[in-house]
């Protein structure tokens, strides 16, 4: 069986990283995996966890502002 790529892309939106992490945990806990698959999944999970933590710790709020009504339509 071909080994699946163990590392997720470096930048993922938080929601995706988080849900993939949850999935990895569930699959690893449900058992029935070969040692090979288990190790691979573990690595992927830990990497995703690291990414999630990084995103949570380093995020800065971005704020933009539309132009005021009634100047309105120009700034969509």
């Amino acid at each position, binding site marked *: 069986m071909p080994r699946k790529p163990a590392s997720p892309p470096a930048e993922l939106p938080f929601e995706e990283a988080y849900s993939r992490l949850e999935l990895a*945990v569930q699959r690893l806990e449900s*058992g029935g995996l070969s*040692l090979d698959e*288990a190790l691979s999944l573990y690595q992927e999970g830990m990497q995703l*966890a690291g990414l999630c933590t990084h995103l949570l710790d380093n995020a800065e*709020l971005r704020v933009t*502002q539309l132009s005021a*009504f009634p100047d309105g*339509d120009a700034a*969509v």
Partner: protein
Amino acid sequence: MQVFSVGQVVRYLKDVLEYDAILADLWIGGEVSNFSRARSGHCYFVVKDAVSQINCVLFRGPGGYDRDLGNGQAVLVHGKVSVYETRGELQMVVDVVQPEGVGALALEFERLKTKLEAEGLFELGRKRRLPLFPQRIGVVTSPTGAVWHDIQQVITRRYPLVELVLAPTAVQGEQAAPGVEDALRRLNLRDDIDLIIVARGGGSLEDLWAFNEERVARAIFASRIPVISGVGHETDTTIADWVADRRGPTPSVAAEIAVPDRQELRSHVLLDQRRLKGALADTMGRARTSLDSLRMRLGALAPPIDRERQRVDDQTRLLTLHLQRLLDARRNAIALRVSQLDAFNPQHTLARGYALVQRGDTGTVVTRPDQAAPGAALMITVADGAFPALSGPPIAGGAPVPPQQNAEPPRPAAPKAPRKRKEPPQEQMQLL
């Protein structure tokens, strides 16, 4: 007859009025006229109806009731009725002014709420689920004021991973309702907004009135993007709150509802890491156990070499033992036979004193006297050797006499000697 001064009479009137329970604390409803504001900030006006009128004074104070006061307004005023001594005039000192219009607004609110509810705008089933991890949130509120600042603070604290897009608008007055409606429209035209917050701080029913307007209600209802409302204080509920997909009692709470808390998320990720480690350890543990179990089963199935080797050794040893026993048995049997044979050894007989007589020429053993005719050459073998002899002349009387007195009693175990092999087997048995 008593004559009073004007001052005394006016003072007397004032006392009478001020001691009256009703006049000391009452509400009057009427229309404002002759309104003027003195430089001091105090307001002087008249409250009148079709029949009569009363002068009023509203002293400058923190209530802010003078703000919207003007001629023609229908008002309810609260205060006490007394006499302004100097002018000798009836006067009400007003402390609270309530526009009579409040009642009208409340009626309008009920009317609209009933109408829109009937149309299904408040329907629970229609309310959308909020995205768990929004990426971009649209905020409809005033760009000035505390609300926008508070929302930014809450989001920064809880979940700064989002981008906030402010759609600025007036939130009270005539421009508010169309402004909110337009802001919602513009946010819905974009394809990158996950969630909208409509927010406004606390205020009176009039201040909040835009959020009770029909056009705002319909704009929220029509929004493709889910809307959280955060209008006024906890006790204020506007029609916008009823229509929205979720309501926050205040703008700050609305912002909290909009996003997850990153502290909780951090804890959850840590927990996930622990679970990953645990699950991996379990998997490896299971694999190890499985391997051990297989090894044991394998061991139980195949005949182990060592055991077989040991069995071979055992068998060899047993075999050797048997052979040894056999050999010993044979040896014993032979020894036995040898000793049995030995019993026939003529040497024993000779040792007892018997002699073996043989003919000197032929070597034939002499058993009869006629074999040893006088003069015959004989060989006599005794225990310790042999010597030749000549048979002597015949003995008178003829019959030889066996020398019985010298005979030793034959050993009980030994057979009679010298006997040939024809000894009966019974005697051999005795030996055994």
